[in-house]
């Protein structure tokens, strides 16, 4: 009896150590960047956790030297318009695939997903020369266009998976009452599919907000978005880490909040979509 008890204690000690290791590995880097954002120029180069916190870094990144708010605005514009186009288009497509008999439906869904297998750098090459010819290089329009190729497939998958689980009875009742299909979608399907739509919105938000490669290639000055702008915090002696950390913290706050809101549905949606 005693050995069993001891075994249990040893087991739970190991378990606790394991959990602590995981927590340290995953959250220590975030904590460190958070601390760095409040450090002064001198404290940055020491690894001490005892220092006088300052808000100077946050003040400086919004000063005229960096124009951080311009990049924030660019990111917001790109995300906003990408989502405004993505959502209605994906909702209608998801509804159609979920509710109607469409020849080659499985193949179509696979093809939509398959567009995401391809390394997107292949697509940027023709876009670069086309945008150059059209004078769209270094504009937010260019970023919105290329981002759509990313968001629409994911949104269709996530929303379609959710619509499949909504019973059709309500819609049929609506149809008997003579409401048009679009009205049924608006009044009946949309409210019921809300969790799925919110999940897709957040996921697309995070994808576009964090998108780095397109922005790096297609923008240079005017339309630069946040992830690329992070590399601008460079002074005479190399990177100004405390300012970059402050910018980074302000940059990631929206994604963290949104992701926490839809965490449950998101993982369910991703794995369910993948299993089907």
């Amino acid at each position, binding site marked *: 009896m005693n050995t069993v008890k001891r075994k249990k204690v040893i087991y739970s000690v190991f378990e606790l150590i394991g*959990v602590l290791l*995981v*927590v340290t*590995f*995953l*959250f220590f*880097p*975030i904590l*460190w960047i958070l601390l760095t954002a409040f450090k002064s120029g001198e404290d940055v*180069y020491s*690894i001490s956790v005892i220092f006088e916190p300052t808000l100077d870094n946050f003040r400086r990144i919004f000063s005229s030297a960096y124009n951080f708010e311009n990049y924030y605005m660019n990111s917001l514009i790109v995300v906003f318009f990408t989502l405004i186009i993505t959502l209605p*288009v*994906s909702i*209608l*497509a998801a509804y*159609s*695939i979920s*509710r109607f008999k*469409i020849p080659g439906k499985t193949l179509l869904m696979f093809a939509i997903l*398959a567009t995401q*297998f*391809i390394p*997107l*750098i*292949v*697509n940027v*090459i*023709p876009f*670069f*020369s086309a945008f150059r010819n059209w004078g769209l290089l270094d504009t937010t329009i260019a970023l919105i*266009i*290329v981002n*759509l*190729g990313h968001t*629409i*497939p994911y949104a*269709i998958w996530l929303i379609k998976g959710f619509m499949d689980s909504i019973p059709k009875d309500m819609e049929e009742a609506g149809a008997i009452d003579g409401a048009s*299909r679009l009205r049924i979608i608006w009044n009946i399907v949309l409210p019921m599919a809300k969790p799925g739509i919110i999940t897709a919105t957040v996921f697309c938000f995070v994808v576009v907000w*964090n998108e*780095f*490669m397109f922005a790096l*290639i297609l923008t240079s000055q005017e339309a630069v978005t*946040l*992830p690329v702008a*992070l*590399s601008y915090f460079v002074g005479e002696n190399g*990177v100004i*880490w405390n300012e970059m950390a402050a910018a*980074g913290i302000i*940059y*990631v706050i929206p*994604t*963290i909040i949104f*992701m*926490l809101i839809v965490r449950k549905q998101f*993982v*369910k949606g*991703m*794995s369910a979509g*993948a299993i089907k």
Partner: protein
Amino acid sequence: MENRFFKYILLAPALLIMGAITIFPLARSLWISLHEWNLTESLEIGSFIGFDNYVRAFSDANFWNSAWVTLIFTVATVVATIVCAILVALLLSKEKPYISYLRAVLIIPFALSPALVGYSWRFMLNPDYGVFSAIIGFFIPPLADVVWLGNAVTAMIALISVAVWIWLPFMSLMFISGIMGLPKEVYEAAKMDGANGFQTFFRITLPMIQPIVLIATILMTMFALKQFDPIVTLTSGGPGNSTEVLNFLVYNTSFRYFDMGYGAALGYILAIITVAFVLVYMRKLVKGDDWN
């Protein structure tokens, strides 16, 4: 009154946009890959040279270097992430209050911008003032003076750990939802029969979560082959070209040397590798349980 074409009208905008933004550029890229075209010399696509760009790749030392680097990076990242994610999932799939809080915030690292993560790790790995270097040096004194991003092997290790850090939370959550969904009765029966923890894991848990392992492997391989942001911000392919994965080589060829034709060909080679891999695994997934 139901219009026969209504369903296609609903579908049309999405298909049109995807056609214009994904399919058309993909075809255009293939066309470019069959031409000679350096953007610094001409704005117009150059002369048709057939598969010369592809042939060129196979005699290009940079290509073979990148192919090798990509292989090491992908295999190590996928294996490390999946193994760690299963271990984390075993730890965190318990019904205890503090663990369920932890599950709730587990997604946070995944929401962070990979570009920012790359920069942050570069800061923390700095040999003079980096906190990671200091911690590693404290626990393993012989490693105290290592310049992590200054040599090929340690730079690759750093890159792999960043990739694992980014993907571990998401993959763990996939496994957690799989493990927590398993029927409890089986475990009770195993306990009655006196099975120990290892036996329970290898005989029961692992076989039952096999489909998830397969899906996770497919997703993870795709992500690893496409990884770009943290590589640019952590190592920029260096030192030398020791961490220049294929994706980054395509970027350098096309947008630093503006050799669009050759860049497109390299991109296509990467795309073909990715699709071939996914198809092989998809077949396994569809066929089901022939995993042995």
